[in-house]
């Protein structure tokens, strides 16, 4: 795990870019603990659960709390222990982490999953193209996250890189506490096989991402 963390910080990949964008927002105000209490109470009063979107989703966890209190730019002494705790909780599977890039491409294309209009656990997507460039064949890609075109080509696909890609998709906050990227495994949107298929999309030399 330690080596994973080192690798991640050395890579300066998806994570770094995601924070930078927020840091530049000078007008982005920090919330106070009282603000968070007030807003959470307002949301609980004003929202109704629907389908899989239960009211428990309004409760903040420690990561969200710290990011809200520090306008997504918490001091390192607060961020590090939380990142480490998130990292420790990632269940990296044993064995091969590279699944099927073709299935991965479908998962990356789908923006569905975890909404009140989605059936839980059915055809959930990663929504990857909403924010990232991946396959150069897909012209409709978002730019909230960095381009991942050629991801595996430049980084290789050894076990460490597989673990990093798997971990980053499972819980991006383990590498950059206030990243805008959802914690897709941690949130229960994607399962182990789906994440492996996305790792393949990123790392498999045959994947269109690496052409």
């Amino acid at each position, binding site marked *: 795990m330690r080596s994973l963390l080192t690798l991640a910080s050395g890579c300066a990949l998806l994570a770094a870019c995601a924070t930078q964008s927020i840091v530049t927002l000078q007008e982005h105000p920090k*919330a106070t603990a009282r603000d968070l209490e007030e807003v959470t109470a307002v949301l609980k*009063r004003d*929202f109704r659960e*629907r389908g899989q*979107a239960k009211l428990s989703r*309004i409760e903040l966890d420690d990561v969200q709390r710290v990011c809200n209190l520090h*306008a997504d730019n918490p001091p390192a002494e607060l961020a590090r222990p939380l990142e480490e705790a998130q990292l420790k909780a990632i269940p990296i599977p044993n064995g091969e982490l590279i699944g099927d890039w073709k299935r991965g491409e479908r998962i990356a294309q789908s923006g569905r999953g*975890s909404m*009140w209009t989605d059936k839980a656990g059915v055809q959930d997507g990663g929504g990857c193209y909403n924010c990232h460039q991946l396959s150069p064949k897909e012209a409709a890609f978002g730019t909230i996250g960095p381009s991942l075109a050629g991801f595996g080509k430049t980084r290789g696909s050894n076990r460490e890189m597989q673990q990093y890609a798997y971990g980053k998709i499972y819980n991006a906050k383990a590498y950059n506490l206030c990243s805008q990227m959802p914690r897709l495994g941690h949130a229960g949107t994607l399962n182990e096989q789906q994440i492996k298929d996305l790792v393949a999309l990123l790392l498999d030399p045959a994947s269109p991402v690496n052409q």
Partner: protein
Amino acid sequence: MRAVACSALIALTLAPQSASAQKSQYEEYQRMTAASAPVELFELAGEAAWKKRQGPKNASLEQCDLGQGAGVLKGAYAGLPRYFADADRVMDLETRLLHCMMTLQGRSRDEATKRVFGSADQASEMEVLSAYVAGQSHGMPMRPGKDHPKEKAAYLLGQKLFFHRAGPWDFSCASCHGDEGKRIRMSDLPVLYKPQHVQPLMATWPAYRVSTSKIVTLQWRMNDCYRQMRMPEPVFGSDTTVALLTFMTQTAEGVQYRGPAIKR
């Protein structure tokens, strides 16, 4: 209109090109479709809904006070959201219309909000009413209420809500609308707390959306953003939705209203 939209769509699905070339094609597509908006049809339907007697009191909405006096429609939308003493809260257009349905027509909240968001086949009563009322502020500067303490409080709450990250995907409004020059897929993302970004938007809602063939309102926009943020569902007309709309409309203050418009 459909033929124009189709040929524009076909043009867009041609082989991959540079992002800037695609962007200008989108702008051309928006320009072409804007010239033939069917918004007037919805406004006509809205006028009929405004004058229709219904509910336990068998009354129309013609005496509804939208902030400029009972029954005054001219410029009413451009003055919203604002504080209403009779309800002792800030209301946006749709929340106020709901209030009038309940008070003037005697309808229950459940009945009046049963189908606030319509379909491509059939717009909702709320949607056509919104188009009708908003159309009568066309060309006027938007001046939402901002002096009453509750208007100030709504703005502040809206600002806090805008940046508040929560839910399984850790999203706030600012996750998508907080940074310049970003897009989701091919859609440019406006930075919704900056006047120059939010003005052209507030100036054009409610709107006819070509991609879904539906008239869409700001309450729908709030609802659908929270859906995509993976949050539970905000209650129609709740303080949360009104506060966000107050925050954005006050930020856009002064822009000339040019809706109901057409969107991609």
